[in-house]
């Protein structure tokens, strides 16, 4: 067990525990704040995996923007402090099934794709901006562009939905 392994395990534990608190806390804002901890711990994991750029992107986009957006929406709709303001829905069993299935599917893909990978701690290839840019815009440019079209479609869809009936 090297120091890196220990820190990695600790970060993973933090991510897991805070993720559990996200889904169990009875205060929806607390859930959003625990999500910040989860995302931060995952960013730490990325750093330890030598994926620096991905880690800072995670911090900038997820912790700095997505959670702010989440909090904005929550503060706009569910404001009271005090316990019991979290949404309890009857769909919880269904959500459990969906989440479980997603975990299994993603885990299987990861296992199949990177099951035997070993990161040699002595000669790490750090995921710099240059290397990642090369991979995305040379090798994987088509899937990347297709994904961006999907996002654009979602954006347009959201605008259409919110402006419906406004003629």
């Amino acid at each position, binding site marked *: 067990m090297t120091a890196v392994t220990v820190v990695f395990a600790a970060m993973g534990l933090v991510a897991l525990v805070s993720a559990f608190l996200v889904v169990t806390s009875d*205060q929806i*804002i*607390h859930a959003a*704040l625990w999500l*910040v901890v989860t995302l931060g711990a995952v960013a730490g994991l990325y750093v330890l995996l030598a994926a*620096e*750029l991905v880690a*800072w*992107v995670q*911090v*900038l986009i997820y*912790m*700095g*923007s997505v*959670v*702010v*957006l989440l*909090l*904005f929406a929550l*503060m*706009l709709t569910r*404001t*009271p*402090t*005090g316990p019991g303001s979290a949404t309890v829905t009857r769909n919880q069993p269904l959500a459990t099934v969906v989440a479980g299935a997603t975990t299994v599917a993603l885990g299987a893909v990861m296992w199949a794709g990177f099951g035997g990978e070993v990161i040699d701690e002595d000669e790490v290839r*750090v995921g*710099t*901006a240059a290397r990642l840019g090369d991979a995305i815009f040379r090798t994987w440019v088509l899937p990347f562009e297709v994904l961006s079209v999907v996002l654009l479609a979602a954006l347009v869809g959201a605008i259409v939905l919110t402006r419906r009936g406004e003629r």
Partner: protein
Amino acid sequence: MGEVLEIALRCLVVLAAFLVLPLLIGQIEHKTMAHMQSRVGPMYAGGFHGWAQLIADGVKFVQKEDVTPRAADRTVFALAPAVALVPYLVVLFVIPLGPSMVGADLDLGLFFALAVMSIGVLGSLMGGWASANKYSLIGGLRVASQLMSYELPMVLSAVSVAMMAGTLSLVGIAEAWQWSWLLWQLPALVVFVTAGLAELQRPPFDMPIADAELVLGPYTEYGGMRFAMFLLAEYAGILVLAALTTTLFLGGWRGPSSEELGWLWALTKTMVVAFFVVWFRVAWPRMREDQLNALAWKALVPVALGQLALTTVVVLA
């Protein structure tokens, strides 16, 4: 052993800068605003032109009672000031004062700085919600909407110089800086400082704290040391914004005899930018919420995109 000592020393220096420079900026703000408004400002504390005013303020804040509203969410309420303050300390580690005078020269320094800076806003949001006060809550909402509008132009304008330098390292960008950037990267500079001001909620973008309508926005319920931390976060934010502007757009440590005096140049430029930040506060009235968002989306984003396109053409040509 020597390496550990050096790291410890660097950490200590950055910490000292974090504790001293924001106070200096605070004093600049007190005095500049006073003289621009035909007052003299603090004159007594410490003797010479009230130089110790902020230290006296600090002592006063420590003595004050720490009040927490009964309906407040105590944990989040207590954590918020720290969440607002600590990110700026972390960012200071990657901002260089000279080619080797930097806490840590990260390969992705610029990205790191922008990413960590965006976390500080969570502190205002947490404070706004946890205070259980409707003025605080509205202030928090305004903080969030403002951040979402201004984050994009800020990142876009920073990308422009990073592209020109061909690196994301802050030291690398300052080393690649040329005089001509002052001229044709000027739109990016203006967008960066404007968006930075909005992210720090400094006037004229202080709609979230608008004292005439929201008391003090997210900070209404805070007093004593906790309020002092929010105040310190504001000045530390100005310091970080000014230092980043210096490094990205004003050539960092460049200047006459920059071999020995580089750090002095960097500090001077930083303080001049901070002075401008104070000046903007005195010069312009607060913008309305809709004007604020319109400015971001209709003016700053197009300008930043145009600058980015221009830079791309120059880099490729």
